[in-house]
């Protein structure tokens, strides 16, 4: 039997969340969207949204700590798994091809500089800081206004309500427009813009499980000296598993498994517990 590609599996998991929202729309289940999925009083609330809401209202919501603790736990266990397996943005990525010469140039510069200088800080962290500060100053969760995850579901809900209640609104034009602008930016790399991804990356530095690992004996580059680099080229976060891998670099990994799929020698694995001897070249 042919192995199912990781990208197909990812599409399925994302569609499962979409299906949950549709079931919620049809049957009043109250499950909500990815901003806060839940059942009755329990909800997996968006960590960024909850922080913004607390800063904006200048109150401390103790029950949110439980949600945040679960978020930290999941991130320690599985890293940025949300970004590849739940966030709907990657679904649209293929519609926004990134064969832009200027970007390749930027990527090259990043690599030229990351070899030389110390670790670069992703601008997503600044968007995160800006969003939190702005929420505090203006008194409402600011990033939620343009959150691509929220807007995707808002479009879905808007279309549903248009059909069910004949409720035409300008939102149905405005939200897709905002989304298109954002997706055009996000296609290069989510980490430069997305504050949610940045927040997850901050915590995923603690992630030690299920990290991608190259089997040096199988890899064409390390065992035979062939310039392959397929795994790096397919990686949306531009992680080169052959380089000395810093904790902060690997914390960007979204466990999308595209590198494992693309490797002609099947040399890349995601062992849940990697051996201590992390000997990379």
């Amino acid at each position, binding site marked *: 039997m042919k192995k199912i590609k990781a990208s197909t599996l990812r599409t399925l998991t994302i569609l499962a969340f979409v299906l949950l929202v549709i079931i919620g729309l049809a049957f009043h289940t109250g499950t909500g969207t990815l901003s806060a999925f839940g059942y009755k009083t329990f909800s997996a609330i968006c960590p960024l949204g909850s922080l913004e809401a607390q800063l904006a209202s200048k109150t401390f919501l103790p029950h949110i700590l439980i949600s945040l603790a679960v978020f930290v736990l999941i991130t320690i266990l599985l890293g940025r798994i949300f970004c590849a397996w739940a966030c709907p943005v990657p679904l649209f990525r293929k519609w926004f091809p990134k064969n832009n010469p200027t970007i390749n140039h930027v990527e090259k*510069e990043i690599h030229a500089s990351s070899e030389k200088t110390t670790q670069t800080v992703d601008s997503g962290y600044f968007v995160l800081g800006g969003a939190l500060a702005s929420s505090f100053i203006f*008194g409402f969760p600011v990033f939620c206004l343009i959150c691509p995850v929220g807007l995707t579901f808002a479009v879905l809900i808007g279309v549903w309500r248009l059909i069910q*209640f004949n409720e035409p609104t300008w939102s149905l034009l405005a939200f897709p427009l905002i989304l298109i602008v954002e997706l055009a930016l996000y296609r290069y790399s989510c980490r430069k813009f997305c504050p949610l991804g940045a927040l997850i990356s901050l915590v995923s530095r603690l992630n030690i499980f299920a990290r991608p690992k190259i089997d040096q004996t199988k890899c064409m580059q390390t065992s035979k000296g062939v310039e392959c680099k397929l795994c790096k080229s397919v990686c949306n976060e531009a992680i080169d598993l052959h380089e000395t891998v810093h904790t902060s670099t690997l914390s960007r990994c979204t466990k999308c498994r595209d590198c494992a799929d693309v490797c002609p020698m099947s040399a890349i694995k995601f062992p849940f517990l990697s051996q201590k001897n992390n000997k990379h070249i």
Partner: protein
Amino acid sequence: MKQNELYTKENTTKASKSFQRRQFLSSSAGIVVMLSLGFIGAQSKTRKLLRPPGGQDEDAFIAKCIKCDRCRSVCHTSVIGVAPIEEGFINARTPVMKFHLGFCDFCNQCVEVCPTQALVPFDKQTVKIGIATLTDTCIALNYGGCTLCFEACEYKAIALDDQKRPIIDADKCNGCGVCEKICPALVLRSYIGGTLRGIEVRPIAKEAIV
């Protein structure tokens, strides 16, 4: 060989410098965009909207609502709808009461599911979503003969005067919206157009909330 090495070294420092500059610019752009988004959002507030019960303190509500859609989804009478972007960028996607579609029976489910306590627990006896107000389209005011809202009101907030025109008791009315839901003015007087029914629940001005 040595020269070559020097060249690449110089090249990489140049590249890293230009990269650092670019990074500084994009980072500050990120902060500026977020701050201006907050400013634009704060400016885009329009009129006061009808919120689900427990969300009447508008500033506190808007500070905590993350637009997760759980209250709208759980509402079994479908009275909770979504505010469109026409109501202001900041209000887009927030829950609003749509009394054309349903009415509120204060079942408390929306408060229960709200993950950020934007909807705070309310007292069923004192909570007021808004107050019903007669409008120009009211059949009883124009022609007489219609008493549907009077009959529908569970809270005895609507009385009839000697000409059988409805009178609303603002103290007893809690804005449940059943009167607006049932009002047939737009159906029976469809030639007048518009979307304003003969009785409408309106938000209470902030000063009125104690």
